[in-house]
C-alpha cells in the first residue's frame, strides 16, 4: 500500500516536472511572483538580522551588565557622597562600582603647557572592566584610590602634546599645580566606550585618568555625579536596578528628577523590539507579493487543468482515482511554487550578501528565514493549487473524453 503510494508520488512528480519543463517560459513567468516575494522576505529578514546583530554587538561593547547613574542631586545635595557609594556597593549582586569625576584642567609638563585636558577620576573597578584600556604601564590600583595617590595615565593625544614623543613613563605632570607621576599610557580601545566619550567633555587636549579620590580633592568636588554600577550577571540587572533605585531615593530624599539610571539592557531590548517590529512589517508587505504570486499559480493551474481535460479523462478511464488526479495536480503546483521559493531563497541570500558587503555588516545566513521562504512557497502551492486540483479530480471522465 505504502509502496503503491510512493510509486504514485514518484510518477506524479515525474509527470509534473515534465509538464513544467515543457512549458518553461510560462512556468517561469508564473513563478516570478513567488520568486520576488520569497527574495524580498529572505533579503529583508537576513538584512534585518545582520543589522540587529551589529547593533547588539555595539551595545554590548558599550557595556551590558552595567547600570549608569547620573545623579544631579538636589539643591541641598549635589551628588552622591562616599557613604552613598558604600551603600550602593553593598547591594546584592553588585560586583563593583566605578564612580566618575570629570573635569578639565590645564596640564603642564617640563616641556609643555596644554589647556583643556580632560581629567577623569576613576577607580580600579573601571580598569578591571576595561581590560584593554592600558597599553603600557599599569592600571590604577585599589591602593592608589584609597591613599589618593598622585598617579596618572594619559592617552595618545595628551602624550603627544605634553611629551612630543618622549617616553612619558615615570615623568611628572602638573595638574592644577599638583605633581603627578605617569604610570601608564591608555590605548585607543578607550574610544570604544561611547558612554565614557559622551560623558567626558570631549575637548582635543587629550585625556588623563587619575584616581577619583585624588580628583575629588584636587577639584574640590565633594559629591559624585556619575557612577557605573557593574552587576555580577546580566540576568540580575533588573533586580539590581530596583535595589539601586531604593538606595538613590533614600539618598536624595525621594526627590523627583534627582537622578537617572541608564540601563544598557533595556536600551538594547527597546532597540531589538523596534527592529523586529520593523522586520515583521516589511515581511508583511513582502507577503503581498507572495499572495499575488499564489494567485498567478492558481491561474496557471486552472489553465493547465482545462488544457489537459482530455488527459485527465483518459487517466480516469485507465483507472486513476479522483484522489490520484488531485494529487498529481497538487504536486505540480507545489513543485512550481517550491521551485520559485528555492530560486527566491538563493536570490534573497545573494542580495543580502551584497548588502552586507556594501554596508560592512557581518553576513548571517538565517536558517529560519530559509525555512520560512521555502515553507511559505510550499504553502502557497498547496493553498492555491488546491482548487484547480480539486476541479481536475471532479471532472467527469465521459465529458472529459468527449471534449476531443
Amino acid at each position, binding site marked *: 500500500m505504502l509502496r503503491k503510494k510512493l*510509486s504514485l508520488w514518484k510518477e506524479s512528480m515525474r509527470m509534473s516536472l515534465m509538464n513544467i519543463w515543457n512549458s518553461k517560459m510560462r512556468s517561469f513567468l508564473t513563478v516570478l511572483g513567488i520568486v520576488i516575494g520569497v527574495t524580498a522576505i529572505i533579503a529583508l529578514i537576513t538584512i534585518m538580522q545582520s543589522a540587529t546583530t551589529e547593533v547588539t554587538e555595539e551595545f554590548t561593547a558599550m557595556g551590558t551588565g552595567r547600570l549608569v547613574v547620573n545623579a544631579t542631586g538636589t539643591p541641598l545635595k549635589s551628588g552622591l557622597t562616599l557613604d552613598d557609594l558604600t551603600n550602593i556597593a553593598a547591594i546584592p549582586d553588585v560586583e563593583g562600582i566605578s564612580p566618575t569625576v570629570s573635569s578639565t584642567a590645564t596640564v603642564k609638563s617640563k616641556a609643555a603647557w596644554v589647556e583643556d585636558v580632560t581629567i577623569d577620576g576613576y577607580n580600579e573597578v573601571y580598569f578591571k572592566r576595561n581590560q584593554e584600556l592600558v597599553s603600557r604601564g599599569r592600571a590604577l590600583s585599589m591602593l592608589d584610590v584609597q591613599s589618593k595617590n598622585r598617579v596618572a595615565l594619559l592617552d595618545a593625544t595628551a602624550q603627544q602634546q605634553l611629551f612630543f614623543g618622549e617616553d612619558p613613563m615615570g615623568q611628572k605632570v602638573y595638574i592644577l599645580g599638583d605633581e603627578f607621576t605617569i604610570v601608564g599610557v591608555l590605548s585607543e580601545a578607550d574610544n570604544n566606550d561611547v558612554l565614557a566619550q559622551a560623558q567626558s567633555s570631549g575637548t582635543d587636549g587629550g585625556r588623563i585618568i587619575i584616581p577619583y579620590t585624588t580628583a575629588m580633592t584636587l577639584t574640590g568636588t565633594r559629591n559624585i555625579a556619575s557612577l557605573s554600577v557593574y552587576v555580577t550577571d546580566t540576568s540580575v540587572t533588573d533586580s539590581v536596578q530596583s535595589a539601586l533605585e531604593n538606595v538613590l531615593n533614600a539618598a536624595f530624599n525621594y526627590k523627583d528628577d534627582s537622578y537617572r539610571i541608564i540601563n544598557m539592557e533595556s536600551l538594547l531590548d527597546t532597540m531589538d523590539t523596534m527592529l523586529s517590529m520593523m522586520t515583521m512589517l516589511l515581511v508583511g508587505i513582502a507577503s503581498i507579493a507572495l499572495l499575488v504570486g499564489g494567485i498567478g499559480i492558481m491561474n496557471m493551474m486552472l489553465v493547465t487543468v482545462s488544457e489537459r481535460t482530455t488527459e485527465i479523462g*483518459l487517466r*480516469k*478511464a485507465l*483507472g*486513476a482515482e479522483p484522489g490520484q488526479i488531485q494529487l498529481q495536480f497538487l504536486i505540480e503546483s507545489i513543485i512550481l511554487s517550491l521551485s520559485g521559493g528555492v530560486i527566491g531563497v538563493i536570490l534573497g541570500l545573494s542580495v543580502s550578501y551584497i548588502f552586507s558587503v556594501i554596508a560592512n555588516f557581518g553576513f548571517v545566513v538565517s536558517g529560519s528565514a530559509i525555512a520560512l521562504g521555502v515553507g511559505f512557497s510550499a504553502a502557497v502551492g498547496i493553498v492555491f493549487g488546491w482548487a484547480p486540483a480539486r476541479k481536475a479530480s471532479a471532472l467527469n471522465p465521459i465529458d472529459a473524453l468527449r471534449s476531443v
Partner: protein
Amino acid sequence: MQNDFFHMTGIVKRYQMGAELQTVLKGIDLTVREGEFLSVLGPSGSGKSTLMNIIGCLDTPTEGEYILRGRNIAKLDAKQLAAIRNQEIGFVFQSFQLLPRLDAIRNVELPLIYGGIPEKQRLARAEEALVRVGLKDKLNNRPNQLSGGQQQRVAIARALATNPSIVLADEPTGALDQTTGRQVMELFEEINREGRTIIMITHDLAIAQHAKRIVHILDGLLTEGEAQNAQEKA
C-alpha cells in the same frame, strides 16, 4: 461461473437534458461469455456511447443490474469504479488518446501506474504488450513519430497491458484508412483468438462483421443481430 462473467439486466439510463428527462437506454439485457468477440452496432444517437460508458464502468445505470465478474457495478463508488476500470477493462478509443509527450512505452505503462505496479515490472509488461502488437522497434517513439495505425496499436497495447478481462473498443478504426483499419481489426481478431473478450462499439457494419456476434442498438434498445453471418465469417 460463466454466467457471472458479464451480465446486464434491465439497464435504464436517464439524463436530465434541460427541463426534459431523456431516457437514453430503455431496458437493455446483455450477457457476454468469456472469450467472446461482440460488436454493438448502431447509428449515432442510438445510445451506443452511453452503453459503452456503462460497460466501461465510466458511468453507472439509473436502473438495472450490471454484474461484471461477480460485482454489481451499479453499487460501486468512484474509487471502486476506478479500480474496476484499471483491472478489468482495457479501453481503445477512436482517437487513440495517447499522451503526446510520452513515448510509446510510457503511454502503455500508464494504467499500470494506477495499478500500483513497481516501475521495473511496469516497463517489462509495457514492452511485452508493445511487442505483442508488433511495435518492437517503436518503443521510444512519441505518438507524433508514429502513423495512425501504429498509434492505435500502441493504444491496444495499453489496453492489454493490465491483462484486463474485457477489451472495450469504441470505433477503433474510425480515424484510420481502410487498409490500416483492416490490419487493426485483424489484430483484434488475433487477440480474441488468444481468449480475450472483446466488445466493440461501431456504426460501421463492415467493421462489425469482424466480430463473432453482433447486437444492434437502436433508440436505446438492443436486438440480437446477424450473429450467424458473423460467426460464419469468423
